[in-house]
Every structure is written in structure tokens, then in C-alpha cells.
């Protein structure tokens, strides 16, 4: 019984219930009403069209990052450097925009070039982690983390240095680009249907890449058993590099969307932590691409919904992060417990 798909779902529901239970306890411990907090978060994300559009704005980069991470996870790599890859995507996009600021090219072409530039920027940054890993023996977690900090420093250097606003540089970022450089937005809302479409197409491509292609199969072979894949004649290190490049390009695309569709300039916190959050989504969906859309949407809704909390209830908005983290933690623990039960069942 425990082996069936039904039991997997049942255990995940238990994890969900446990996490809401724990977060409720945390809220009660500081004399806040859990039901009021959850209700405010729901209202803050789905209550109005305008708020739901904000959820979608957060959903786009999160889904793109998750799509990329599914590729590196399939290859058995922990691409924690994804956060920096988003940042470099944003930097590269800004660079392309600045380069064509005075040109007569049609805006649509410039936007396309800027987005492609972002993908290349992210891929190059991911390649650094890959090279450090493949040729330098530096674990991708540590190389990636270090590069994340370098990426943030680079952003701040550019904003306060070469790309500073005329007059005075500030944390509000570089000077905004003209309106025609923006991806078209829905009227009166901040969401761009183009960005949404690109993100959905990306996850679909990744789904088919991993499920239905020879490339995906080999990638998974490398991820499952590096040594065996090598002995079977799969060029393992090339596949590791490919997965870094694909993930970097998708993370860079997320950064490009942040610039081209949301902020229209480079700001210090351009990645908004979506890289790390994408790692959480990928873990929660147990690396199954098919679940990426609903779970990324749910996480985006939590992020946007929690913005209400400081205003309405004087609670810190980091509650969404706590809830997301506890959820993933319980999913891991419950999955471990389930496997343990299965094993016990087999032994007796």
C-alpha cells in the first residue's frame, strides 16, 4: 500500500498539514492569529486582479529558474550559483540596452537582443562554476556561492560606478530605460504576457528535454551514476557543462525578464532571491518538471501575499520564507520516513 502513488500523495498532504501546523504554532507563540495571517496572505495575492498580476510577475522568474535547475539537478549537480546567474543575466541585458540606447534599430529587435544577451550572460556565469568544478575540482556549491557574492558586488559596482545616474548614484539603481524598451505590459497591470509566455514555454521545453530526448536520458544517467555513465561511454564532463550552460541561460533569461519587463533598469537586489527560492521549488517537487507550474505559482503567491503582513498585522514579511522552508523541510522528512516504512515492509 505504501508504495503506491496514492501513498506518496497522502504523505505529501501530511507534510503540508504539518508545516501549516508548525507555522501556526510559531504565530501563536508571538500572540498572532494564524487564521488571520493566512487569510491576509491569501487576500494579498488573489484578492484583486492587480495583486494577482503581481503574483504572476514573481512567478515568471521563479518558474524560469526552476526550469533551469531541473536540468542541473538531473545531472546530479547542486547549482547554488543560480542566484548569481540571474544577476549576470540582468547585468548583460542592461549592458545591451545601454549599448543600443542611441541607435535607430527597431525597439523589438533591441529587446530581443537584450534578452538573448541576458541568456548568454547567465550561461557564461554558470560556465565559471562548471569550469571550476570540472577542471578545478571545486565543488559547485562553494564555487557557486562565491560567484553569487561576486555577482552582487559587480551589480553594486556598476550602479555606483560606471553606470551611475547622472548626478548622484543611489540604491534605486541605474537610470530607467525609455518606455519602448519594455516588453509590452497588459494595460494598467505590471505583468507582461510575453514574459509569462516565455516562462511557460521554457518549462515545457525542459519537460520534453528531460522526458523525451536521448540527451535528457544521458543527462539523467550522468546524474544517477557518474562513474557508470562514464564507463558506458557518455562524455560525462561535457554533459555536466551542458547542464550548467542550459541552467545558466534560463537563469539569465529570468534576470533579463526582471530588467526588460519589471524594473526597466538595473537595481541592487535585481534577483530578489528567486534563485534560492527556485532551489526550494525544485526540491519540493522532487525534481519532477510536471509539478513546477503549480508549486512555483504557490510560492510566488506566498511571497506577494506576505507583503500585506507588516501593514495589516505588524508582522515581518519573512513569514512567507518560513512557511516555504518548513514546507520543503517536512516534505524531505516525510519522504524519508515513507522510504523507511517501505524498506521495513520489504524486510519483514
Amino acid at each position, binding site marked *: 500500500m505504501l508504495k503506491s502513488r496514492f501513498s506518496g500523495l497522502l504523505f505529501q498532504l501530511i507534510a503540508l498539514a504539518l508545516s501549516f501546523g508548525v507555522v501556526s504554532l510559531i504565530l501563536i507563540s508571538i500572540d498572532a492569529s494564524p487564521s488571520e495571517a493566512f487569510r491576509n496572505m491569501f487576500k494579498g495575492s488573489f484578492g484583486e486582479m492587480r495583486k494577482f498580476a503581481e503574483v504572476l510577475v514573481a512567478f515568471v522568474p521563479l518558474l524560469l529558474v526552476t526550469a533551469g535547475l531541473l536540468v542541473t539537478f538531473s545531472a546530479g549537480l547542486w547549482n547554488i550559483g543560480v542566484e548569481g546567474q540571474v544577476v549576470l543575466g540582468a547585468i548583460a541585458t542592461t549592458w545591451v540596452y545601454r549599448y543600443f540606447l542611441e541607435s535607430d534599430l527597431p525597439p523589438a529587435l533591441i529587446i530581443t537582443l537584450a534578452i538573448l544577451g541576458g541568456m548568454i550572460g547567465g550561461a557564461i556565469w554558470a560556465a565559471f562554476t562548471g569550469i571550476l568544478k570540472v577542471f578545478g*575540482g571545486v565543488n559547485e556549491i562553494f564555487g557557486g556561492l562565491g560567484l553569487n557574492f561576486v555577482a552582487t558586488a559587480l551589480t553594486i559596482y556598476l550602479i555606483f560606478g560606471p553606470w551611475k545616474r547622472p548626478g548622484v548614484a543611489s540604491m534605486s539603481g541605474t537610470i530607467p530605460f525609455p518606455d519602448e524598451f519594455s516588453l509590452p505590459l497588459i494595460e494598467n497591470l505590471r505583468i507582461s504576457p510575453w514574459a509569462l509566455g516565455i516562462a511557460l514555454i521554457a518549462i515545457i521545453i525542459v519537460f520534453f528535454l528531460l522526458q523525451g530526448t536521448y540527451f535528457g536520458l544521458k543527462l539523467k544517467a550522468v546524474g544517477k551514476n557518474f562513474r557508470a555513465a562514464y564507463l558506458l561511454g557518455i562524455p560525462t564532463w561535457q554533459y555536466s557543462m551542458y547542464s550548467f550552460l542550459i541552467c545558466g541561460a534560463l537563469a539569465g533569461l529570468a534576470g533579463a525578464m526582471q530588467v526588460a519587463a519589471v524594473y526597466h533598469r538595473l537595481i541592487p537586489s535585481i534577483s530578489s532571491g528567486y534563485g534560492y527560492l527556485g532551489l526550494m521549488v525544485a526540491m519540493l517537487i522532487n525534481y519532477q518538471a510536471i509539478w513546477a507550474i503549480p508549486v512555483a505559482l504557490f510560492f510566488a503567491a506566498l511571497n506577494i501575499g506576505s507583503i500585506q503582513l507588516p501593514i495589516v498585522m505588524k508582522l515581518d514579511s519573512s513569514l512567507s*520564507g*518560513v512557511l516555504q522552508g518548513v514546507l520543503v523541510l517536512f516534505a*524531505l522528512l516525510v519522504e524519508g520516513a515513507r522510504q523507511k516504512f517501505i524498506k521495513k515492509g520489504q524486510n519483514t
Partner: protein
Amino acid sequence: MTQETIIIGLAGILAASAPIVFAVLGETLSERAGVINLSMNGTILLSAMGGFAVAYTTNNIVLGFLTGMLIGALVALIVAFASITLNQSQVAVGFVLALTCRDLSYFLGNPYMGLPGPRLQALPIPFLSDIPIIGALFFRQDAITYISFIAIILVWVWVYRTRPGLMLQGIGEKPAAAYIRGANVNLMRYVYTIIGGALIGLAGPAFSLASRAGWMGTISGLDGFGWIALSITIFGGWNPARAAFGAYLFGFLQWLGLVLQPVLTQVPSQVLQVAPFPLMILTLLLVNIGNAEWVDRTLAAMPERTRKFFAKLLRAMRASPPASLGVPFERD
């Protein structure tokens, strides 16, 4: 710069590095036993907040430090339970805890933001503090800095000079062999992960009750130190003394960044603050590159003399992790 300002600067580095020293010692112990505690960044923030909150409410600074240790031990217990008992990925659980504990510290610490709380005072040691230079460097610090000095020595002696320490090395390198010789591998892993976690948890209050007293939420500037400590642990090659040296080196680089700021006015201060990171990657590269396969192949193709030189150089820098790091142990 006069001699006096240099000595004050260096003494300041020793004090400011104390939290990182605790963190790298704790992580070294945990990884020596075979468990990566990746939660460090969150643990430090949560224990900094928790330690400050308890010390503020009870007005008892010692209780604050104990709270920090307790938080670190509890988080480590979750890592140990999930990875050893439930067979989940140490990296996954640790990473989730790193983010969750960070957000939890911001959430629960909200009411304590910016409050003026207790802070450890300098505690000069009679006679010793009067020794020229050395006295000013080592014996005019606060209590937690003294404890950090002692902790380095204790952990080093424990790992390299005692029987249980020898067993600890065995558990990390060849758990099967240690098991045959009578060690309860998984129990020992629990114990060392929790002790290591308590040490990591000491790093939090060492910030919030001493070198960076107070709790400021997201602008406390503590976010990131845990990740640095993680790379310093590798830089230290799982040797407590070398890891502590790495912590001081990092402290020195940060101090250098501050000192150079007025000189390098062109460079924004935020850039100098992160300057140690590229250096850290570089050192990781130097430490690890000897482990890469192509290096062996390239070396083999070199003439005898050059090969010997490079091989020696690489061996001097190289650090290999405990062989069973991150690998679950199952007796069968």
C-alpha cells in the same frame, strides 16, 4: 600608521574573527565525522537573534550564549536526523534549514530590532595584559574571544592527540573499519554533528552580544558569514588549526578593505566588503586543483624535474575531504 594603531587593529581582528572561528571549528568537527552541516548561515543568524533576545529579556548575557548553543545544537539535530536516520540528502536538508532559519530569525527578531542590549566588556587578564605587544594583542580581549582561543587548542588536541579523536578521524575516513573496531558510527555522527552545531550556534551570540552587539534584522550585516565559514572550513582542509588560521586571514582581509577605503575612493565600499570572496574562490581552487584528474595527466607528461616541483607544490596546498563526507553509513 603607528605601531599602536596596527596592534589595536590586529587585536580587533582577533576579536572580530571569534564568531567565524567557532563556526569553522564546529563545521570541521561535523564534517570530520562525515556530516556536512550546510545550515550554518541560517543557524548563525537564528542563534544571534535568539541569543540577543534571551540576553535582553533576562538581562543575563551567559544565558544568551547558552541559548545560541542550544539553537545550533537543535538545528544540527535536524540535519543529523534527516540525513542519518531518514537517509535524505545532507545538502538538501542543510540548504533548506539555512534559508528557513534565516527567515525565522528575521520574523521572530522583529520586536527586538535596534534595541540597546547587553554587550560583553573587555576583560584584561592581570599581569599578562601588561606584556608589551602580546598583552595588547591577546590578553585585553573579552571573555568570548578568550574562549575562541581555547576552543582552537581544545579541538585540535581532541582531533589529533586523543583516542576518541583518532576514532573520529576513522569515522570520517573509513566508517566501515571504525565500525569493525567497535565504534557506533551513526551514534558518533549524531554526537559530533550536535557538538559541532552547538559551536556554530556560539558564533551567533559572539556577534550579537560582543563584536557586533545588537540585532538589526536584515541590515545586521550577518547574512553571508555562514557561507564564508563554510568555504573557510574547506580552506582549512578539515584541520582545526588551519581552519582557524583561515578565519583570521578572512578577518584580516576585511580589515584591510576598511583601511584601504579612504585610499581607494574610486571603489565603492560595498565592493571592498566582498573582495574576500574572489580570493576565497581562488584559494579553494588552489586547494582543490590537485584533486582534478587532468592535473595528474598533465603532470605525467612533464619532464621529471618540473613534475616533481609541481607535484610537491600541489601536495603542500592540497586538502582532501574526509573520504566518507556526505555518504551515509549502513552496516550490512
